[in-house]
């Protein structure tokens, strides 16, 4: 399955890219699975997701927790806790 991954703020700075398209292997079922899979892709991902418990995730632009199933999501975003306002 091909999904679009988006990275914001320091997650973007650490991965070194704002977005990318990836083919997810079948065993990546949850957000936590995806984070684990990304961390194995290289040191920049390892650094970006090191404190994985503070990373927030949105599936198709809706906040979800790390145990959420990715299912048919097309756009998955990773970012730090928000600080607007």
């Amino acid at each position, binding site marked *: 399955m091909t999904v679009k991954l988006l990275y*914001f703020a320091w997650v973007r700075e650490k991965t070194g890219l704002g977005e990318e398209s990836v083919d997810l292997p079948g065993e990546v079922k949850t957000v936590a699975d995806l984070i684990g899979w990304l961390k194995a892709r290289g040191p920049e991902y390892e650094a970006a997701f090191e404190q994985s418990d503070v990373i927030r995730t949105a599936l198709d632009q809706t906040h979800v927790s790390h145990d959420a199933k990715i299912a048919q999501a097309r756009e998955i975003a990773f970012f730090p806790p928000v600080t607007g306002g």
Partner: protein
Amino acid sequence: MIRVQQQDFDIGEEIDRLRAGRTDIGAIVSFTGTVRDTAKGAPVTSMTLEHYPGMTEKELERIEAEANARWPLHASLIVHRTGRMTPGENIVLVVTASASRGAAFEAAEFLMDYLKTDAPFWKKEEGPDGGGWVDARDSDDAARKRWSAQDKAAE
């Protein structure tokens, strides 16, 4: 109504537009967030606001709908800027209008509390000593939680 934009906004004009021609409003509350020249004691020379286009608008619309479901608002507005700003500049504007001041005040606080924890914006500060991404604050999470505590108390 919600808007995300780079350019500055004029508080007076925004309020005027919201109330134009209306005589059923009794109370209008506005909140404006501005860039401060210090953060945790260190000088700030500029701030850059990044956001998640698409999701930002969805979240702001959801938050505004939630406020309108909780309070009898005659009108509401959220405007949030993105990009680079310097101290003294406007960042965010929330306006609520209602028949009574209690509803207008509570809804404006609610909008700000939810925006602070739910809307995908991130601030990066720069100063003479460097800079960095602003950390989320526990006090903002606590401010948001009080609204759910009220729901539970009201059940």
